[in-house]
């Protein structure tokens, strides 16, 4: 084996090492051995096999668990639990296993983070011990060059040119590029996995919106007009985790004491039968009841989200008297509007809604188009003509359509869907700090492969006498 870059990095001691330093080279050798073991190609191959299997089981798991659960349980975690049940759909589709087959048990498996990190370590170790961008004899030359002790600018440049032309191992440059691209790609996925957010912004035609909806969680909002500024509203919200925990919520910022009787993470609304009991005593709950539904799997072909609902009882803060039990459901205001509680100046409106985050801009939907191919119902294009109105500054008109998003305020707005009966648009709003990394990675890897394979192909053709 050749010398390692670690030895190069250390200032080489002149002459023999002194006796007290005797043990250091041993340790160094051990370290070197350790890194060499980490850099092993065998390890690479084993990690590849493990990754392929993880990707395969993850793909299968998506059928029953949905995208987000699979991401969290397989790819974006350190240790994955693989239930044997995930292999059943595979057997059903391809080998005619019975449709109602249930298989208990499962096994632990390294998750996406573990495999990614291991691959990264393996790769870095390999570069530490195996790939050298400079030809061996030229390291001291490089040091000389860096010191530039005896040179004027001109000789320095000449030396540099000579160095680049003749002393860099161009043969290795492809590999180095490929691997650095892979590193950027792995880091990019890590950043996306941890820091990217996705939200929706539904807007009706002729209306505007200044908030994002996070459909993976809800909040209970208490609203009233701001007495000082009638154009604005004052909102107090109870976050989802408090609703899920149940019990009584008493907070000085809330106008009422809230008791959560029941929270249902996915429910459907239907008419109440006359004979049916219902906890609700006021509002919409008198005419309707919630029916519990199984949780939706995240990325179905038709991408549905859960529709939470709840029954809550509100109490007056001072007297402690009950103000009634209300039915809440996340789409209720589309049917009956927000429900009123109390009367006069103390009246509030309550609403269970997807969590909102307010933005420093407002988007006004001027037009929305849903084109189909003539004579069919195959969608051809969806497009939204919107006016972007920042809180400070000039507004501008933008058309957002398929494959043509709007990028603004470090967010990207994509045409995602339509409101029922094409009454408006749904924009998907994404903030991803790692969004550029795959582009860089792709360029690096592709260039690296072209150089690497290209050089080999060239020398092959040359030897064949073709070129």
């Amino acid at each position, binding site marked *: 084996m050749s010398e390692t870059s670690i030895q190069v990095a250390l200032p080489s001691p002149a002459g023999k090492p002194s006796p007290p330093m005797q043990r250091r080279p041993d340790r160094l050798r051990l370290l070197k051995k350790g890194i060499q073991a980490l850099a092993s190609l065998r390890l690479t191959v084993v990690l590849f096999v493990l990754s392929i299997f993880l990707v395969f089981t993850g793909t299968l798991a998506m059928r029953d668990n949905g995208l987000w659960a699979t991401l969290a349980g397989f790819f974006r975690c350190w240790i994955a639990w693989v239930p044997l049940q995930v292999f059943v759909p595979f057997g059903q589709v391809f080998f005619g296993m019975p449709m109602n087959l249930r298989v208990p048990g499962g096994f632990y498996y390294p998750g996406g983070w573990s495999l990614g990190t291991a691959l990264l370590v393996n790769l870095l170790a390999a570069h530490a011990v195996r790939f050298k961008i400079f030809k061996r004899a030229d390291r001291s030359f490089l040091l000389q060059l860096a010191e530039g002790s005896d040179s004027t600018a001109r000789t320095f440049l000449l030396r540099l040119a000579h160095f680049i032309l003749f002393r860099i191992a161009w043969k290795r440059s492809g590999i180095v590029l490929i691997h650095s691209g892979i590193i950027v790609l792995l880091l990019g996925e890590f950043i996306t996995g941890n820091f990217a957010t996705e939200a929706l912004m539904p807007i009706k035609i002729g209306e505007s919106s200044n908030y994002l909806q996070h459909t993976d969680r809800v909040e209970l909002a208490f609203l009233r007009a701001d007495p000082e500024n009638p154009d604005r509203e004052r909102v107090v919200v109870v976050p989802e985790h408090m609703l899920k925990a149940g019990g009584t919520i008493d907070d000085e910022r809330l106008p009422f004491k809230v008791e959560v009787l029941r929270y249902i993470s996915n429910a459907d609304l239907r008419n109440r039968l006359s004979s049916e009991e219902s906890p609700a005593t006021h509002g919409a709950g008198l005419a309707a009841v919630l029916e519990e539904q199984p949780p939706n799997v995240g990325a179905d*072909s038709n991408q549905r989200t859960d529709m939470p609902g709840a029954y809550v009882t509100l109490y007056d803060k001072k007297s402690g008297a009950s103000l009634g039990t209300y039915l809440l459901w996340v789409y209720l205001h589309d049917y009956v509007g927000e429900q009123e509680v109390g009367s006069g100046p103390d009246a509030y409106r309550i609403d269970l809604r997807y969590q909102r985050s307010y933005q420093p801009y407002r988007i006004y939907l001027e037009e929305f188009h849903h084109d189909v191919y003539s004579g069919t119902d195959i969608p*051809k294009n969806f497009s939204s003509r919107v006016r972007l109105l920042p809180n400070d500054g000039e507004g501008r008109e933008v058309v957002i359509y398929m*494959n043509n998003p709007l990028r603004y305020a470090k967010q990207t707005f994509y045409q995602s869907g339509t409101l029922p009966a094409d009454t408006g648009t749904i924009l998907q709003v994404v903030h991803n700090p790692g969004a550029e990394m795959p582009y860089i990675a792709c360029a690096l890897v592709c260039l690296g492969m072209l150089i690497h394979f290209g050089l080999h192909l060239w020398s092959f053709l040359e030897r064949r006498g073709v070129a």
Partner: protein
Amino acid sequence: MNENGRWLPWVVLGGAALFLIYWMFPQGDPAAGMHLQELGGIPVQDGGRIKPFDSMARTTLMLISGKQTYKDENDRTQPAVKWVMDVLTHNPSADRSKVFRIENDQVLSLLGLEPRSETHFRYALDEFRDKTKLKQLWDKAEAAKKVPERERDTFQVKVIEQQGHLRLYMMLAEQMSPRLLPPQSSGQQDWRSVGEALAALPTPENNLFKIAEQDRDLAMVWAILQSYESNNPKVFNKLVAEYRKDVDTRYAAATQRTDTELFFNHFEPFYRCALLYGFVFLLSCLAWFGWSDTLNRSAFWLMVLALVVHTWALITRMYLMDRWFVFVTNLYSSAVFIGWGCVLLCLGLEWLFGNGIGNLVGSVLGGLTMIVAQHLAVGDTLEMMRAVLDTNFWLATHVTCINLGYTATFVAGFLGLVYVFRGVLTPSLDGQTARTLTRMIYGVVCFATLLSFTGTVLGGIWADQSWGRFWGWDPKENGALMIVIWNALILHARWGGMVKQRGLAVLAIVGNMVTAWSYFGTNQLGVGLHAYGFNNKLATGLVIFWATQMGAIVAGLLPLRLWASYETLTAAPPPVEPAPPSTAKPAGKRRGKRRSKHGDAGYFPGPA
């Protein structure tokens, strides 16, 4: 080398070219009978595009019976156009022809039919035209539709399918399809069917001249139908010719395309290619037994000719869709394109190595992909693209690249198969051939890695452009990722000396399985954005393919002494053989120490 054999490639090429020219000019319409071929050129609007009547008829018949022609009551093969015309004009012959393909035994018993393999499970409408039975079928289908798509069993899927076929028939019988009539005013996009146009007349009419006053096109088409119904070829032919001329002048741009498509339909270029590939395969097999140089050269040039036809067909499809550089729009076109890529790559290999292996693998893959494509052709293969997919740039870059990645991985896998089969079953795998094959596999895997990686990342960038997710962990994306990792694994295993010649071949065969999973398997799960084209037949085909590959892998892993080529492989190389080239390289020398007893495992030295 035989001096006398020099003429053979020319003879083969010339003969094939003559056949092609013959196929290009199909027999025209009979002078006395109905000019149905001419009728086939009339433009109609179907599936969102303007196409010749002939294409629409073929697609409809294909959906119902699985074939583009049918046998009439007298067992004579007839074109799809005739069946559609018979249905449109309520000719009882249509209902007596066996066109409805029903294979599911439960659906058959529901309709009171016996499984009948001699007519390939095709039945005439008259055989099951029974009100109560049809109502039963209808009810079952409606009930099945209430079951979520993923939970439907085979019977439910089939009964819905059958109802769809009957619907298609009814649409024709009520003249609500096809949309034969151009829009009345120039601003409109929607073409009209005869039924719609008749209903839209301000005053209901039966008199042709009165109709003509209100709607000239309708009167014309109505008259054509009338003359067909009354079996009057003379009038029919005259009217058809007149109408086509009229439409040609008014819609010159559209009819240029429909005329090309009509020629395409009659020429059936992919079928002709499949025949040529079959012939190439025969020639390359013959080359094993002698006269190999001449036969291989003939096979090579014949494959070049087939590729020319193949390329022409791909370009014509792009012209018909008006999407240049977009080779792939659905599973069918991907199979056709992958076949093209395989043949091209194999021709390149043959040109470089000249050992007949490129010919063999190219012809097998070319032929196989044509057969697969034939099975994937459901409905219109030039269908319109859904909104998100409707972007030529990404279709031309990402999709093309990914499919070329599949192509290269398959070629590497089939080269691996050649290695294993020649080694296990024949004594013909000598050291030199083994080395050459290894070089070929290695080179193609490098190519596959580059293409599949680039294609996958381009897909990610497309996703980032349209959804804001670079990597959505969609099943199809994961499949592509698996191909990339697998190719990288092969290369790293090879560089690390973990596999040598045989191991490389076996790993490449596993690549076939991985690619087949990504290509067809992921769609079958019915999840995700790429969940198009679920198909029972495909699932079965895939399992069979996997089984054959597993068989080859097991054969490849057999102890070497069980191989038929054991002695040839282990024999000392003859003295005339040149030294393995890579020993000339310092990198090769260094790795040489770790290398096998079977000599240098590869040509391109990897990183040490």
